[in-house]
């Protein structure tokens, strides 16, 4: 069981076991076309994809879409409720919340992207090593067990206490906290591939390890990695936002979504919109990743082959 649950999210996928698909020469385009066909029939997954694309579009073109500058203070406009002029209202400095959410998305999504990339690279490397080189397995998994004995958020907070608050350190902390579950998934996928006879055959031919790994192992564990990464994306955004909410991530006046919710908290009784909308943005993006991740899992599920 590796369904480790953190306060902000489940970091693996309890409903369906992620097994590596049957070994085959997956480079075949046909397979991925099939997967896409299956995915495109899945309304939930497509819904997620659409939400995601909308957000990415809005965030990338924030400087064109946003109606107001994000840092300019206009005290006469402070704490205005949502209206036609300020779609989502204004904050305590009279800044437009809609514009800030658009720009803040760049930070929130980037935090997710970087922590996931970091976790993916380290996670795959360690997972493959643990699965492939059995001698290192014990050691790596023991370290992962140790890391997994911490509630993930607490681990991230302690790491930030050591490194100092800030965007970069928050991303590192989120990545470290996410690595163990990654390693577990990758390792068990590698193990199931490794047991297949043809790997032994290839090994017997004297082919170098790195070739076996890159040609035979990696392609065959892509499915769980893709699903895992998608789900982890949502989780990382959630974790990063949580850290910013605690004041450990993005620094003011950066319009990071979690940080905006934190500021809004002070004004909750006067200006609910200050915390409602940034939080909603977080939820929608994470939801989109989860919807897409679920769909991908179904589409890649070997049982449906």
């Amino acid at each position, binding site marked *: 069981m590796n369904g480790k649950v953190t306060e902000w999210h489940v970091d693996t996928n309890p409903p369906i076991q992620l097994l590596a698909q049957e070994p085959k020469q997956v480079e075949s385009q046909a397979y991925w076309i099939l997967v896409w066909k299956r995915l495109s029939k899945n309304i939930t997954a497509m819904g997620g994809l659409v939400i995601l694309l909308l957000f990415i579009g809005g965030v990338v073109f924030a400087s064109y879409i946003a109606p107001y500058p994000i840092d300019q203070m206009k*005290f006469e406009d402070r704490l205005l409720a949502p209206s036609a002029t300020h779609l989502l209202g204004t904050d*305590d*400095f009279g800044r437009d919340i809609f514009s800030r959410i658009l720009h803040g998305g760049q930070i929130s999504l980037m935090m997710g992207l970087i922590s996931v990339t970091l976790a993916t690279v380290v996670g795959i490397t360690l997972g493959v090593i643990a699965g492939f080189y059995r001698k290192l397995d014990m050691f790596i998994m023991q370290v992962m067990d140790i890391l997994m004995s911490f509630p993930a958020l607490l681990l991230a907070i302690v790491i930030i206490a050591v490194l*100092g608050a*800030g965007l970069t350190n928050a991303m590192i902390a989120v990545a470290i906290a996410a690595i163990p579950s990654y390693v577990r998934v990758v390792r068990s996928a590698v193990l199931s591939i490794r047991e297949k006879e043809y790997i032994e055959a290839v090994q017997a031919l004297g082919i170098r390890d790195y070739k076996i790994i890159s040609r035979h192992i990696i392609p065959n564990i892509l499915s769980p990695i893709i699903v895992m990464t998608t789900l982890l994306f949502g989780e990382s955004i959630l974790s990063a936002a949580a850290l910013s909410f605690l004041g450990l991530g993005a620094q*003011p006046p950066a319009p990071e979504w979690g940080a905006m919710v934190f500021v809004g908290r002070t004004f909750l009784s006067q200006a609910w919109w200050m915390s409602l909308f940034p939080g909603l943005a977080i939820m929608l993006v994470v939801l989109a990743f989860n919807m897409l991740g679920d769909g991908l899992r179904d589409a890649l599920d070997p049982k449906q082959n």
Partner: protein
Amino acid sequence: MKETFHGLKKAFSLLVTCSVILAGCSSAGQPQTKSQDGQGVAGKGGTLVIAAPMEPDTLDTQLSTWVDDANMRMYDNLLARDASGKIVPHLAEKYSVSEDGKVWTFNLRKDVKYHSGEPMTAEHIKKSIERFVAISPNKSLIGPLVKVEAPDPYTVKITMSEPYAPFLSTVSDFMGALDPTRLDKLGDKFGDDPSGTGPLIFKEKVRGASVSYKVNKEYRWSPEFAENKGEPYLDEVMFRFIKDDDTKMLEFKKGTIQVFQQVPPHFVKELESMPGVGIAKNLDIGIQYLGFNNKNPMFQDVRVRQAIAMAVDRDPIVQYAMNGLAKPVFGPLPPTIPGYSEKVENIAKEMYARDVAKSKQLLAEAGWTDTNGDGILDKDGKPFSPELLVAGEPVLQQIAQILQSQLKEVGIDLRINVTDLQTLRDRATKANHDMALLMYGLADPDILYLMFGKGNSRRLHYENAELEPLLVKGRQTTDVNERLQAYEAVGEFLVKESPWVPLYSKEVVTAYRDVEGFKTSTSTGIIFQDIKLIKK
């Protein structure tokens, strides 16, 4: 205020927020008028419940780094201060200082008794002072003390190695009598079952929740500012430590709390409009400031420091971040403490009224210009982009953002770094920073010696051979007028040198209801003697 970063060591900074010290001369708690409402009668008896800002670490004030009404009112000091900050007799009926300024003599009242009934004598005071010198984290406040003597039961004689003017402040804030029998019995654990001569008698402590006291019905030696010279009206006083401001507010509205200390600015308007609620505002003795690390090469040029001071506009800070509950301060001392000089404040105000053009000009003279057209000044290829350390409190974060936008107008790119208090202290103390948003305060102008004196400048890292003798003169001059002059010289020097940018002093707001005769001020604390509960 809780964990705001004050300028000095915790002890001082804490003092600032608490009632111990010199007064806000502002409205010291208007006489209660609103709360009668036609219903309810003020009378004897009952328990006054107070929402205190923070739980003191211990009730032994000699060991504590947090001293306020919640833990110091079991004790009396040798002298007291009235609401205007004037020093008045308390346990000592009168005092004198020798001509060389080194020997202080205090003549004690003869009617003072401990909670146990035992009469207080000079020996006990001696014992308490000696304990303070031995164990208190605040002991540096006592000055160059040589010895304490009790030549007769009602005289205390204290000898210093050199004149030390702030001693009077220390005596009014710290030096009292602790029950000698308890001291002998409990030693360092005195705080577990403390006792003294004060208006409150320790009853019980529930860690994390409250401290309860019985009111000392025998108390007849209050300082002269208390109106009730007879038996106090209240039976008990309970301090509750509720962490969350919203919860405090809710309980206050429900009426389960009668006194809400240190009301956060954003609640004040609502409370003011509530019928039956009284509001007392007292200007704090501390100053919030924007501090430079004066060891940092970036701030070596006085023109740069002056330019930044000119770029700052205090009005939006006071108006929006503080909801109007603060007074802008330009000079080194707030108007609430002795040594404050209107002259110095006016010089500072004139020099540092916001002037973007002049600020830019000074920066240009110092070599900072925008060569690459990105809107940020640079010099030798490096942008002017200092980091500002700020503690996590929302209000401070707001101030930091306002400063950021103001400095941007002169081409300085302030980077805000919100960190926990401990990291902030650590980095500021090690001079491992650029700028920090901090606070300092003490009821005595000697605060400036503690901020800028030789070997003391732990936050601002600004020491100056010219300034040092001026500061020393200030702390060694016991004559009030001469002392004021000494601090005017200090003030003028500091204003010119601009080693930091003072921003404001805040109003300490106390809300109260269902009580009659409620008065509080930063220097007297709550005057329990005069309070009557209104029973409905």
